[in-house]
């Protein structure tokens, strides 16, 4: 007889790794997943390596000719301050993606928490949270974000990360409502499942049931949703930066677009100034959307049949 496989308590990490690998290969197996993932890998590497890759510091090196077209010195030309546009795009990728990610994580955490609590506990807790949720769903995002970001702009200058941190918080706080709705409905159906009742019969407390049985079963959904939300938060950051609420010391793609607009680049036909950040935004948003849909198809059994 073959040797019995050993049972160990430390199988968790290996299992998590295997699950991650399985998820990635599932994403890769769909065409849009493949395209999205490739785009994201390229841009993430560029963003992470931007301090090394960028030829100049776009917030400091203003020595060159203003609005010069692409040349061997400046592959993507220079901007209205005479700074290198390629460097700006690389550093901007870092800021845009960091804000997008961080804000989406905040929205995922709040959305999951509110959704689980209101779905599982029900009653007046549910009614209160649903009312708050409704409120966040219907307030027009842009005016509200502009008001908050403007009001707190000065204060945020002293924070670590400056106004970028403020943008992360504002965008994150304003984009969780859809996630919590989704999670709540999933929890409502999960809590009626027999394995939850069985856990109760085993003597588990509500907190235990939420941690061990509800959360693990809603996390894949939250994950898929959060990836989709990243594209929305990146767009939101670009919008707010474009209207002047970005951090001048930490320019994002939106900040670049704002500067291009202010310096009349569009009117003078200096396409090298506004096209690169614009294309960057479009591609990254597309990448997150494609990957998000690919993951959604994996975790949502109702969409699974559509996979081809």
């Amino acid at each position: 007889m073959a040797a019995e496989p050993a049972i160990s308590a430390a199988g968790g990490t290996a299992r998590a790794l295997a699950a991650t690998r399985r998820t990635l290969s599932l994403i890769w197996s769909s065409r849009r997943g493949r395209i999205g993932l490739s785009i994201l890998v390229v841009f993430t590497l560029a963003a992470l390596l931007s301090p090394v890759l960028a030829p100049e510091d776009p917030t400091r090196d203003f020595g060159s000719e203003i609005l010069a077209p692409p040349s061997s010195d400046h592959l993507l030309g220079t901007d209205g301050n005479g700074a290198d546009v390629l460097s700006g795009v690389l550093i901007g990728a870092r800021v845009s993606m960091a804000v997008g990610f961080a804000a989406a994580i905040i929205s995922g955490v709040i959305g999951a928490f509110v959704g689980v609590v209101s779905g599982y506990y029900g009653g007046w807790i549910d009614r209160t949270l649903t009312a708050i949720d409704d409120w966040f769903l219907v307030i027009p995002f842009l005016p509200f974000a502009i008001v908050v970001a403007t009001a707190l702009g000065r204060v945020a200058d002293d924070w670590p990360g400056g106004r970028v941190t403020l943008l992360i918080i504002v965008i994150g706080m304003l984009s969780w409502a859809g996630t919590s709705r989704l999670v709540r409905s999933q929890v409502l159906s999960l809590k009626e499942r027999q394995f939850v009742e069985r856990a109760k019969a085993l003597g588990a407390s509500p907190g235990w049931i939420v941690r061990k049985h509800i959360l693990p079963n809603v996390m894949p959904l939250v994950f898929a949703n959060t990836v989709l939300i990243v594209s929305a938060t990146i767009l939101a950051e670009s919008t707010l930066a474009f209207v002047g609420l970005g951090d001048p010391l930490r320019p994002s793609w939106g900040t670049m677009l704002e500067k291009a607009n202010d310096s009349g680049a569009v009117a003078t036909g200096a396409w090298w100034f506004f096209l690169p950040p614009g294309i960057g935004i479009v591609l990254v948003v597309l990448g997150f959307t494609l990957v998000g849909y690919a993951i959604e198809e994996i975790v949502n059994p109702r969409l699974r049949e559509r996979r081809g």
Partner: protein
Amino acid sequence: MADREHDVSTTATTPLFEVRDLQVHFPIRRSGGQVARALDGVDLEWRRGEVLGIVGESGCGKSTLGRALLGLQATTSGEILVDGEPLEDADLRAVRRRVQMVFQDPYQSLNPRQTVGAQVLEPLAIHGIGARGADRIARGVAVLEAAGLRPAARFWDRYPHELSGGQRQRVVIAAAMALQPEALICDEPVSALDVSVRAQVLHVLMTLKRERGLSLIFITHDLGLAWALCDRIAVMYLGRMVETGTAEQVIGDPRHPYTKALLSVVPSPFPRDRVRREILAGELPDASRIPTGCRFHPRCPAAFDRCRSDDPRTLAAVAGADGHRAACWLVDG
């Protein structure tokens, strides 16, 4: 083992569970305050070390009763006593440690994202039994193997969807047994399983019962199964007990027309001595519209005038048969 035997004899007078006039009503939405009476005055006694069968059609309230015993179902009125103490005063967590439950559908009662190992360790972690790590794992392995999943290491890292129905039900039983309960409530434990694995799972349950002196409740719609496994049987109809007694009494000499009808339709392997089948007319009435008088009278072949007006509320003792009772006006009290 000797200690346990001793326990049984000294406390034999107090039943493990006693249910008195239990009512569970469910409000019906948009009905203007109507209720469905899932349990409508149930009396029951579950003695220590006893295998008690609760038999009835789907919708008669037998699962609701099982869930109510563990406090999983809010009750409307009536009493549930555990060791003579009201359930609402008892520490539910402690009760649930002593009395475990096996659910009907093993496809639904396991968390799809937990491995077999995690499922059997969970009850130990909930109650803080044993030391985290090797000690608990050893206990988990032991209960899995006792439930017939041998070698346990082969199943430990598998997920429920990789197991057959019978194997899943064994995992459920193993997890319940991990707490070393004194009693087990089995709600249709094999009705979702293939006939070929039913016997194996029942064998596991009966072996555990014999070796550990468990008290068992079998909730089932299968009278044959109840007869094979149970010491005593309680027959339920529309939220109330209609006949109780030892398995021999209820199956061998049924007194309530409902029990008789149920028995007559049990398929017999000997078609020649087939008794006259008593096919019940109509369907189980709605629990929100329980008939007046005897609740069984609209379907009863032996109903007479009194049945339409008077409710046989208390079960009448069958003369000359100790403990055999039936809620029927035809049984002389």
